[in-house]
């Protein structure tokens, strides 16, 4: 195998005495469907920020496809193919659904540096395709302000995909989605080409186990375990971490992928 697409080595982030992310080392191979789980405050979202570069690391290195990107600013990393959806909806609220996706798509498919209007046929075509994929084609002219919460989450995914990422980071993409909407999301991510590597943070373990082929459990900023979904479910240490924060129901309620009802 070639170098892993995403490689974290000793990555840490401290806020004063608090170690939000503590010495995380993790390799995510190309084409992986990798989930990050852990109790609240485990450092999952912080870790994402360290990967995207929206927050600098306190120590360690972040590499993308063998290249050290630790010193690159966020937008430069994005151009290398890192794309994300954020935990809290982060869209261009005064603009339409179509314009939101177009802003992401024109970077790859259009002429984003043009100072005169362009038709951007290729970019618009890609936008139409993505909106159809996430099920928002009937909303293309609506301003984001009019979308429901679930629809905004879908739009987030379309914007993230419009960047044509190599590495797609999904931070709780299914939060606030209806069961039908999250089923659609699972389907969409499953249908992505193997050239796209997906790392997902998600509280809805139905979604996690429906998508992920490998799982990393974070606890108090440290990696507790990395393994297959089966290994993770069987791990006593993981059970304990969740039990310790009163989240045992997450595991005991879940019967496994068979009971997911993902159609």
């Amino acid at each position, binding site marked *: 195998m070639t170098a892993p697409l995403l490689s974290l080595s000793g990555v840490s982030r401290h806020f004063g005495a608090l170690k939000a992310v503590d010495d995380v080392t993790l390799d995510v191979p190309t084409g992986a469907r990798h989930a990050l789980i852990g109790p609240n405050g485990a450092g999952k979202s912080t870790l994402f920020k360290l990967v995207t570069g929206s927050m600098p690391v306190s120590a360690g290195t972040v590499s993308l496809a063998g290249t050290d990107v630790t010193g690159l600013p966020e*937008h430069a990393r*994005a151009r290398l193919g890192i794309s*994300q959806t954020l935990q809290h909806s*982060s869209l*261009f609220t*005064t603009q339409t659904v179509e314009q939101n996706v177009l802003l*992401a798509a024109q970077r790859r498919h*259009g002429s984003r540096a043009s100072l005169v209007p362009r038709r951007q046929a290729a970019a618009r075509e890609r936008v139409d395709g993505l909106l159809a994929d996430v099920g928002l084609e009937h909303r293309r002219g*609506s301003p984001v302000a009019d979308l429901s919460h679930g629809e905004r989450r879908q739009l987030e995914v379309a914007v993230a995909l419009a960047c044509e990422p190599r590495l797609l980071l999904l931070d709780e993409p299914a939060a606030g989605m209806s069961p039908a909407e999250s089923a659609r999301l699972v389907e969409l991510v499953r249908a992505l080409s193997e050239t796209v590597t997906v790392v997902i943070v998600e509280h809805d373990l139905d979604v996690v186990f429906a998508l992920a082929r490998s799982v990393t459990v974070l606890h108090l900023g440290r990696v507790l375990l990395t393994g297959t979904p089966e290994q993770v479910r069987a791990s006593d240490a993981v059970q304990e971490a969740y039990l310790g924060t009163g989240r045992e129901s997450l595991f005991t309620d879940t019967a496994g992928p068979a009971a997911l009802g993902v159609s």
Partner: protein
Amino acid sequence: MESIVADTAATGGRRGGGRRPSSLLRAVPAVVVLVLLVAAPFVLAPFATTVLGRILVFALFAVSLDLLVGVTGLPSLGHAAYFGVGAYTAGIVAIEVTSEGLVLVLVAGLAGAVAAAATGWLAVRSSGVFFLMLTLAVGEIVYQLTTTLDSVTGGSNGLYGIPAVRVGGTALTLAGYVYWFVLAVFVLGFTALWLVSRSPVGGALRGIRDNEPRMRSLGYSPFRYKYVAFVIAGAVAGVAGGLFAVQVRLVTPTEAGFTTGALALLAVILGGAGSLWGPVLGAAVVVLVRDALGPTLEGHGPLVLGIVFVLAVYLLPRGFAGLAGISAAVQRRRAASRRTP
């Protein structure tokens, strides 16, 4: 069901992707306005024509500010600096070198762009209230320069004796001809800004206005885009300043001063930030109040403008464009219900 969706879309006041048949219809008001503006000198008295010319000059300045305030979300309080730089440059070139109109407008625009490029990189690095203060400080420093560099600018007496503008070697002495020259440059300047705001870069600028962190995560470097917008706005403000020198033939430090910038902001807010055409109307109101109403108030026009300012902030959060947005939304709603079977 479908029409409800379209309705909410329309009331948002922003239009979606190109709806080809209506885009021609939308050009009709612009053409009508243009025809009226061209015909104005035949109908209006020379004084009224001159006032209309002043409105156009100020409107171009306000529209350039709108590119920053409304489109990019950079509220500049010192934009008059670039207007003033353009005005002084055009005035000095007209006196010392040539009063050929095209040359004056070009050097004024260039001077505005250079000044904006030199100071903008500092301002654009900051954001929010910090940006407000920095632009204000930069603007005021330029203003002080215009008063202290007597040998170049004529100090507080101003730069006078600017010769009549020439086009193709012929001096334009009649108010109507000067007006047409101003109108032509205004149309060019406005069109340029309109194109920029409709371009992919314009889209990116709106993205930065709405959500700068997200733009960064999409791979855009906000600094570069904001800087480009700042320089373009400075260039057009410089052109507007050049037009001012051509039209008024006297440039005083007031032109570069805080009040000029504040009045342009008032025009933008009054007209509706981000719409580009709204600030043109706003500029008309401001100039009419200042030049037409001002003398009858014994020079206390600013009092009225101050009151208008306060009222506009409360009553017209989206300016005239916001008012028009409501009627446009009603029209689009009708059109939408016609399209849906």
